[in-house]
Each structure stands twice: as structure tokens, then as C-alpha cells.
């Protein structure tokens, strides 16, 4: 395979990018000045070289420990468990969480050969061993595999009776209309309804 083909194939491996889009991206790059391509190549090489998982939470960082884990203002008693680093960014954007994270690096999917050992559950164990943790929020996705991961972690956490375990609530989207909500979501919303008086 020539270099052009190699690059197209590599782009096409990215999530959400098909072969056609990959071709368009590569032909677009070819029309750019040479420095643009070199900057991109250097950025990719730099990330490959310098970025690694944070020793405490597992999210990508250039340092040994990431900014969030080093921040003394964050509540060490609250731990939010997510599947991927992208979820950290989403929770951070909400500004509603001031605790720390554990990024599992995936979700339980035996069909894809991903068992508990492939996830960074050890990081959660280490946080719990510290003794400061009051609550663990399981914020894995509400997909089949995300739910199973949460169920599995519940079993792991059964060995820590002093720690509160919670799951993100599922229900109506803010600003959403009732008639467009699917049955499963509505069932959850009804089960987890809030008392007003």
C-alpha cells in the first residue's frame, strides 16, 4: 500500500469516519501548505509520545497526575466513575460535580473480549483504599454494556459498606416534550419521580 492509501485507511478507522470522508479529508490536506501537514503530524506524534493515563483517575494527561486529581479544592470524598475520558469533559462542562473521577477506559463487553480485567477498576480500588471516599457515582452509559458495568461495580463495592453508591438518574431531558419520550425512559422517569410535597 502506498502512503496515500495508508493515510486514507488510517483516517477511515476513526469513529464516525467512513472511507469517503477519509478520502475527502486526505485530499483536503493535500491542498494545504506543506507546513499545515507537518504541524498535524507533529501534534499526533507529540500526543503519542507525551500523553498517558493519569496515575490516579486514568484520564489522559501529560503529567504523572492530571489537573483535576491535583486540584486541592476538589472533594476527595466524591468519586464519579465513567467509561471514557470524553465523559469527564461532559460532566466538567456541567459544572455540577466537584469531586474526582475514575475513567474505566471502556465498558464490560465479553463479546469483544473486554472483561473486568481490561477495565481500570484497580484505580477505583485504590481510591477506596485511601479511606476518604463517601460516595461513588456510577456514571457509565445507559447502554446494555454500560448498565452491566455498573452492576459489576456494585458487586465490587459491596465490600465497602460505608460507601454510598449511586447511579445517574434517567428520565426526561430538560426542555423536552413528554410525547417524544420513549417508553423505557418514561418508565425510569416514573420510577424515579420526585416528590413535590
Amino acid at each position, binding site marked *: 500500500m502506498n502512503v496515500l492509501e495508508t493515510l486514507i485507511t488510517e483516517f477511515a478507522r476513526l469513529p464516525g469516519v467512513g472511507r469517503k470522508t477519509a478520502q475527502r479529508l486526505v485530499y483536503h490536506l493535500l491542498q494545504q501548505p506543506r507546513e499545515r501537514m507537518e504541524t498535524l503530524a507533529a501534534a499526533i506524534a507529540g500526543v503519542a509520545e507525551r500523553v498517558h493515563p493519569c496515575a490516579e483517575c486514568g484520564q489522559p494527561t501529560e503529567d504523572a497526575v492530571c489537573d483535576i486529581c491535583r486540584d486541592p479544592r476538589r472533594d476527595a470524598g466524591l468519586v464519579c466513575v465513567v467509561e471514557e475520558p470524553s465523559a469527564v469533559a461532559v460532566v466538567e462542562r456541567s459544572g455540577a460535580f466537584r469531586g474526582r473521577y475514575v475513567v474505566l477506559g471502556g465498558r*464490560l*463487553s*465479553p*463479546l469483544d*473480549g473486554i*472483561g*473486568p480485567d481490561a477495565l481500570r477498576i484497580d484505580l477505583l480500588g485504590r481510591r477506596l483504599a485511601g479511606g476518604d471516599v463517601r460516595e461513588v457515582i456510577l456514571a457509565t452509559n445507559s447502554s*446494555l*454494556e454500560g*448498565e*452491566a*458495568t455498573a*452492576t*459489576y461495580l456494585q*458487586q465490587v463495592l459491596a465490600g465497602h459498606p460505608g460507601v454510598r453508591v449511586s447511579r445517574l438518574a434517567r428520565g426526561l431531558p430538560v426542555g423536552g416534550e413528554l410525547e417524544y419520550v420513549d*417508553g*423505557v425512559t418514561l418508565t425510569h422517569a416514573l420510577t424515579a419521580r420526585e416528590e413535590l410535597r
Partner: protein
Amino acid sequence: MRAIDLVIRSFRNLADATLDLPESGVALVGPNGHGKTNLLEALAYPVLFRSVRGSADREVGRFGGPGFHVAVRYAAGSTVAATYFAAERRKRITLDGEEQATVSAAIGRWLAVGFFPTDLALVQGGAAERRRWLDRMLSLADRTYLDALLRYRGALAQRNAALRAADLAAADAFNPALARAGSTLASRRRDWVASAIQLWQAELAGLGELAAVTLRYKGDDALIDADAWDERLRASHQRDLARGQTHVGPHRDDLVLSLSGHTLRHYGSTGQQRSAAVALRLLELETLATARGVRPALLVDDVFAELDHDRQRRLATRLVSRPGQRIVTAPRGEDIPRELDLPRWQVQDGMIRHVLSEAA
């Protein structure tokens, strides 16, 4: 519900065509192996977006071709279409021209019930045949069932993969999902059987079977309750681990058909078995009509030749007694009972011609 027109491209041996289908239906006549069943298969494809014969998509396209395309317009402005791209092994499904992200979003918009000679396997075959039939029908009748079925299959596949990897803790992590979806399947199937027994008996009586027939759902009653699953699954741990598969759940149940206290599968005559299979299809038709509030179209593939004269006449009468479009096939015109008075089309070498008006 009726097909107004059907577009076929590169489908099996059929010549590319756009066919306007008469409102009452049509009788397709022609030698075996020339494409009559393929045409019914094309009409049935956009119901569940898979071959009713159980063929893989790559086998449905014309041999050595780029894939296939089939579209059915079933009401003014309502068209379901499927295009299969063989090179990419990709299927594109559209509703009124708009691409659908999932197959399940488009399932059952267009409804047709098929009567095929291979239906005999519903009675003669193993439990898997009847489960597949139940799942197909109830998925089309009820959206909740389809959603539960997809979740159940996903959870079961994951759980079994974990069992094969000898990881019991990971396997059990899928138990809650399995229990939620599985209890829905078990209870809906039972409810349906309870509501369908009388109608099945009436259909069989109408086909001339006088012996007492019954329909019974065979499975663990307790599994209707999602809370009962955990105990059952844990009790099955050793067996599950040893075999690398889950032994608890509706994927192991059966629909038992019996006649005078004996299973039709083992003790019925071939004639009785054929009648029972036809009656199951008539039951499917009524179930869908009631659940969906529309009459599905009927696709009847050369089933008359398999029945004796009396059963032929009776089946024809029962088909005619229900309103709706009927697409019927037979090798020769005289194989179609006189009760089914339909325009005739000739199918030869994959080509479809409107002819034989003299026989009508």
C-alpha cells in the same frame, strides 16, 4: 393494507421491474424455478428486512451482482425500501425516502403474512422454529416486544460470551438486563397463547380438522416476574459454565401444538400437520390485524398443491372470507382453487407478464 407497487432491482433471478399490483391481488403462474417464490420473497423482504427463506442478504442479490434493491409503496406517500450493497456488506433502509438509523425503526411499517410450503417446519421442526415464528409475529404486533427482544438477544449474547470466558462475575452483570427483557418476552408470549387458543381451534375446525387441538406455552412460569430470575440464574451457574451458555430464559421455551392430547409434531399425520401450519399463519394474520388495526397482505406460495382437495377448498374459502390483497402462486392456473378469482400473471425466466386473461 396492500402493495400499490413493487420495485425490484438485482433481486434473485428476477428481471428489474416496477410492478403495479392490483388491489385484490394477483395469481402468479409459471413453472417451478422461474421466480414466483422470489417475487413473494421480494414483497416480504421490507416487512422485517430479511429474507423470509432465512437466506443471508448476499445470497438475495442477483448472482455476482452489486447487491439488490427492493421498494414497496403500501399507501399514497408511504414507501419502505431496502438497498443492500454487497461490496460493503451494508444495508440502507429508507421510509418515504428518509434513511433510517436502525432496522427496528422501519420494521413492520409494511405488513404481509406469508404462507410457504416450508411452513410445515413450524409443526414438524424443533422448538426454535416456533420461537422464531412467535418472535417475528409478536415483534410486528407490538413495539414493546420488539424492543425487549433486541435487548434480550444482546444481553444473552454478552452473558454467553462471558460464560465461555469462564468469567461468572461478568456474566452475572448482565442478569438484570436479561431479567427485565426476558420477563417481558415470557409474559407477552403467554398472554398471546391464552388469547389465541380458541381462534386456533376455530381456524383448524374451518380447515376440516375435527379432533381436539390445543396450544400450550411450555416454559418456566416464574420467569414472568423479573425478580425471580436472579435465583434461577444462580441455581444454573454450574451448568451454564460447563456449557458456556445460559440455560434459563424464554430462548429455551416452546409452543406445544397437540391434537387429542398428543403432540402434533410426533403424532400428527402429514395432512394434519399441514393444516396446523396453515392455521398458525391464519392466526398470525388475525393477531396482526387486531394488534395493528390493518389487514396485512397475504402471500400464498404454492401451498394448495400440498393439500388434498377438501383442505384446498376450505383454505381458499377461508382466505377469500377475509378482505385484503392476496398474492398467490401456483405452477399451473388450474392449481389455484376457483374460489380465488384473481388476475393472472405469468412468471417465466424471472420475467413477469400480465397475461392469461382468458383463464380469469
